[in-house]
């Protein structure tokens, strides 16, 4: 490139045609001479698991009306401490057009009521400390990160998003505006991680995220800065839970390092499921298939060992069943229908031992036995949720 051509191009910028192969070598560049227009990272970017709301081991799309449980994997319900009632939350197939999403979560208010001072209404996601460690919360090295998500609400106005540490003594409330009712909109919020407070960077709660649909005044504050205290809601923000029949949809949630909201990172179903199984694992073999193998132990039970497909976050402390003993069988040389649902013996992050129970089974201690499914609805599930 000649100097005259260089000068001639100043007005228009340098185009690819101006640069021939190998004219700009590494040796010609000083450190920092070439910088990206933005700070972001290539490759796996999203710190959120199941941000597209697709994996639903818990409910398989069924509606939930209970506070403090999971609606889909990794996403929890909050619908308590106010006078709103009849709230349901469930996976939906209503999604933004052309964005590659299959599912969202929809929060529907039955009968609206005041959220008062202590109300807690919203959708919650907790990120494990190991995952947010690269953001260096609680240090002078705290990094900038960007949240992006798609929302659709029947009520326009300003909404809050609460971010909180595990100790619930450091909080940030972000704010976004929904301008058109019942219309999908993408929202982006860029935040610099907190430089103060104690933040978990191991397998505990690294970052608690709360989409505010009605937080009471006690836990609400103004937006835009990290504060001491426990805040999840936006003072003056829309309290969706106070409006009968209101709906709020959410999908495509992403948190990434840097100041740019890149397109949502779609990953394979199998990858997403495996990420979710670190926190909750449901095994549901077809009728007649085995859950696991073990031995007869005692006159009424057994010790059946089952392996988890991925290492769980921590050791589960209970097992979830269908609640129907007849869905389960204990087998040695014949199938014995259980007289109570399988019960928890122990678990590690890698496996669990479960007793398939049959009162007075008459089997010999130490014999090899199998835990068996006796119906298409039979399952066992373990939780290591945050």
């Amino acid at each position, binding site marked *: 490139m000649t100097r005259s051509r260089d000068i001639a191009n100043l007005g228009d910028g340098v185009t690819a045609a101006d640069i021939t192969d190998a004219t700009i070598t590494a040796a010609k560049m000083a450190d920092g001479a070439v910088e990206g227009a933005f700070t972001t990272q290539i490759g796996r970017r999203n710190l959120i698991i199941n941000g597209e709301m697709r994996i639903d081991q818990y409910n398989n799309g069924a509606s939930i009306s209970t506070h403090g449980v999971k609606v889909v994997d990794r996403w929890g319900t909050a619908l308590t401490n106010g006078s709103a009632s009849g709230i349901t939350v469930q996976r939906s197939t209503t999604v933004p057009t052309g964005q590659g999403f299959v599912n969202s979560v929809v929060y529907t208010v039955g009968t609206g009521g005041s959220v008062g001072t202590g109300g807690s209404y919203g959708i919650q996601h907790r990120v494990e400390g190991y995952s947010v460690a690269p953001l260096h919360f609680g240090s002078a090295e705290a990094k900038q990160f960007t949240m992006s998500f798609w929302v659709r609400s029947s009520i326009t106005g300003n909404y809050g998003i609460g971010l909180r540490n595990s100790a619930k003594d450091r909080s940030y409330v972000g704010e976004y505006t929904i301008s058109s009712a019942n219309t999908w909109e993408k929202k982006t919020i860029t935040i610099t991680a907190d430089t103060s407070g104690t933040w978990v960077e191991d397998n505990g709660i690294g970052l608690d995220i709360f989409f505010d649909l009605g937080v009471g005044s006690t836990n609400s504050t103004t937006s835009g800065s990290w504060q001491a205290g426990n805040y999840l809601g936006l003072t003056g923000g829309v309290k969706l839970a106070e409006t009968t029949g209101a709906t709020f949809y959410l999908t495509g949630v992403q948190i990434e390092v840097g100041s740019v909201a890149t397109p949502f990172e779609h990953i394979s179903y199998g990858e997403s499921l495996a990420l979710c199984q670190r926190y909750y694992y449901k095994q549901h073999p077809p009728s007649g298939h085995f859950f696991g193998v073990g031995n007869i132990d005692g006159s009424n*039970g057994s010790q059946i060992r089952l392996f988890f497909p991925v290492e769980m976050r921590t050791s589960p*402390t209970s*097992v979830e069943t269908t609640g129907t003993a007849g869905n389960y069988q204990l087998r040695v040389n014949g199938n014995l229908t259980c007289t109570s649902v399988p019960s*928890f013996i122990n678990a590690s992050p890698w496996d669990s031992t479960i*007793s398939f129970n049959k009162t007075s089974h008459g089997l010999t201690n130490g014999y090899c036995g199998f835990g068996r499914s006796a119906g298409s609805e039979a399952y066992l599930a373990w939780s290591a949720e945050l």
Partner: protein
Amino acid sequence: MSYSIVNTHTDEGVTTVIYGDGKRSCIGIDKEFQQWLRDNADNLPADIQAKVEDGTLTIEDAD
């Protein structure tokens, strides 16, 4: 939610097995069960009260 003891394993490191709400069975460290224990400490079912008194089940302080 209600709980009752359906089995007790005496293997090393294994504690009382407790059956709850028809869906969940748990040992004493289960968070939901511990909350239930605290909420109902003054009116526990006899089988669970016995386990508390003989020391095989501990009611832990809230987080």
